[in-house]
């Protein structure tokens, strides 16, 4: 146990740490490429950002946009074999990219930890809950078996699990999905980390439980003064639970802004498209979802120019040839990478054009569909166009 001073000692130490200023996490030009038989997969391609203590950052993007790899790369959890990693990650002012495994292990769990997407698979099926939580307490804080068990119980109470006493001796399969995710949160927070990665923590859960879990993470963040990086594909999830949002596309940062600024004034057509793809409750039934056409780009052969250009309704020749740099918007903390951002004259003209076309399409599409079946009193109507 040589790493004593490094270990976090819960909220008090976290609070003293806040005094020494500077961002908690400073990522500069982080690159993570994987060597595969098909070629180099550019999962994370030069991402830079900073995260202050106690703040929540949302990383948003489609599947395959590199958000999970980014969070694992920051933590250093990726296998070394066939991975190329460069750039700099300063954690509390300390470079952690090329830290030897032994040093990294001391940070993992104690300083930064992670919650995974699927609570069904992220808990060991043959280890009792209490023991699983206790393991890292004993490892990092050197607690005795009994103290670890007591702390585990307190953690279970913290994450609002009903009947925490009973849970200590249960196995993961005896718990529901939501409870498992709570256990996972307790596990991740056991040693009082200052940075918590939540990798799509609600994707595998029911909508009703999703809100509770997000509330819980938010609550623990303020109670423990943790920073949280919330990785998700759902703009709705990050909207209420983050201070800042970072939108990723094809391994690159394409827009980043404080949450309120982003929703009020998004610049990147991709962000806008993501937002439009969320169904709205007040839309009439049978409204088509606004999907983003096409698929995320192949990260082995990313398209020339702006990587979103092949799918962008507003793309011009320039977009297909020149990759846009990160431009600062009116708000100083708002950056985006787009030649023709939302609100620019070109964008406005093109969206008017698109709206007119869509109007015609919808009219043509709806007309014959209506009379094919009439809703009965008990059953919903299924139109042929579904």
């Amino acid at each position, binding site marked *: 146990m040589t790493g004593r001073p490094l270990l976090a000692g819960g909220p008090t130490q976290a609070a003293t740490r806040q005094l020494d200023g500077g961002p908690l996490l400073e990522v500069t030009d982080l690159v993570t490429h994987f060597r595969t038989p098909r070629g180099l997969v550019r999962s994370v391609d030069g991402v830079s950002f900073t995260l202050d203590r106690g703040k929540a950052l949302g990383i948003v993007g489609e599947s395959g946009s590199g958000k999970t790899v980014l969070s694992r790369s920051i*933590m250093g*959890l990726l296998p070394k*074999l066939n991975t190329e990693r460069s750039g700099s990650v300063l954690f509390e002012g300390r470079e952690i990219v090329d830290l030897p495994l032994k040093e990294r*292990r*001391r*940070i*993992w*769990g*104690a300083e930064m*930890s*992670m919650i*995974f*997407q*699927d609570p069904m*698979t*992220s*808990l*060991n*099926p*043959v*280890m009792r809950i209490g023991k699983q939580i206790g*393991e*890292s307490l004993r*490892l*990092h804080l050197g607690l005795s078996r009994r103290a670890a068990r007591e702390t585990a119980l307190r953690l279970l109470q913290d994450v609002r699990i009903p009947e925490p006493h009973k849970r200590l001796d249960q*196995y*993961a*399969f005896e718990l529901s999905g939501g409870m498992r995710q709570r256990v*996972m949160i307790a*596990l*991740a927070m*056991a*040693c009082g980390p200052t940075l918590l990665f939540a990798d799509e923590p609600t994707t595998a859960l029911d*909508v009703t439980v999703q809100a509770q879990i997000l509330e819980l993470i938010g609550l623990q963040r303020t109670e423990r003064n943790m920073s949280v990086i919330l990785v998700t594909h759902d703009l709705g999830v990050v909207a209420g639970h983050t201070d800042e949002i970072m939108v990723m596309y094809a391994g690159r940062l394409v827009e980043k802004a404080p949450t309120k600024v982003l929703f009020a004034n998004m610049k990147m057509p991709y962000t806008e498209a993501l937002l439009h793809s*969320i*169904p*709205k*409750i007040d*839309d009439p*039934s*049978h*409204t088509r979802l606004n999907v983003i056409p096409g698929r995320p780009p192949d990260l082995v052969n990313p398209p020339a120019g702006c990587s979103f250009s092949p799918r962008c309704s507003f793309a011009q020749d320039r977009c297909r040839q020149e990759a846009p740099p990160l431009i600062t918007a009116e708000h100083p903390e708002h950056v985006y990478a787009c030649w023709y951002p939302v609100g620019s004259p070109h964008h406005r003209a093109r969206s008017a054009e698109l709206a007119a076309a869509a109007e015609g399409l919808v009219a043509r599409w709806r007309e014959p569909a209506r009379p094919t*079946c009439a809703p009965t009193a008990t*059953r*919903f*109507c*299924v139109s042929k166009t*579904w």
Partner: protein
Amino acid sequence: MSSTDVPVIDDPDAPEVPLAALPTKKVKVRRRGRVAKWLAIAWLVFMTVSAIGANSLPYIPHECSGSTSTCSTAIKGDILTKRELPPSWAFWVDPVNPVLPGKPTHHGLMGTDSNGRDIFARAMLGARNSLIIAGLAITIGLAFGTLLGMVAGYFRGWADTVIENLTNVMLAFPPLLLTIFVVTFFNKPDTAEAAQRPLWPIILALVVLSIPPLTRLVRANTIAYAQRDFVTAARSLGAKRGRILFREILPNIVPTLVSFALTGMALLIIAEGGLAFLGQSVELPIPTWGKMIAEGKEKLRAGAWWISLMPAATMFLTLLSINMLGDVLSQRFNTREAIA
């Protein structure tokens, strides 16, 4: 979010399901093969007890206990030697008994062999060697196989390449040939005195035989579990490699291993029997089943079927029981996996 958009398939043939409370019935859960399971366990317990306590158990004739190789049976004061007596229940066999003229004799549960030794007693004693050999071999094999398999499956890279190729080479060897090689290599001809051949060459041979398949099994399972999120989660909490291997991955493999090891043990008993049949196994005063079967083969034509058949039946029942126990265990563990 938009629950109103969810389409409901309009199927006119769908039966109307009354939502009123269905009558609750007490459900009887039936389990298959329960009796067989307990019979198998009982047989194994009986064999183990006999193997350990053969020297003092009342149902084994005393002449056989200890290290004497004669094990002859005393009937009414006369020593029966060099005569095969049928089992006492084999009423259809006409016993020829020149020692006690005029008095046809059957003997014991399993009859006697061509030296007049009680086969039941020898079969119980044979359990000792057979179980010790197979049990030790599978245990050692498990230890090595698990270690190699986990190293190969978790660390991959060059260690995996080396171990995987070695395993393939070993599996390509004809197993019987391999064991005969090992046994004859370690049993030097000059020390091959009947009573001095030790147990360990045959155990070594069987260990060599059992390591490759176990390594493969463990490797495959380790690879599967190493990619599960809970291993990454343990890593992300700072767990060390040894802890991940032995605390996170190993307990998940153990159920599979246990049931496989039991099947493996049954196979090793057969292998040992095969070796003994070929005269390559231990030469100790206490017999093994394979050797007893081998000894009886010359008398099969003469009609003394029990000499080979009785040890074979004992072996068969033991193997069957072990396999059934393996089944029971794997089923038990599987249910938990299914819930999880």
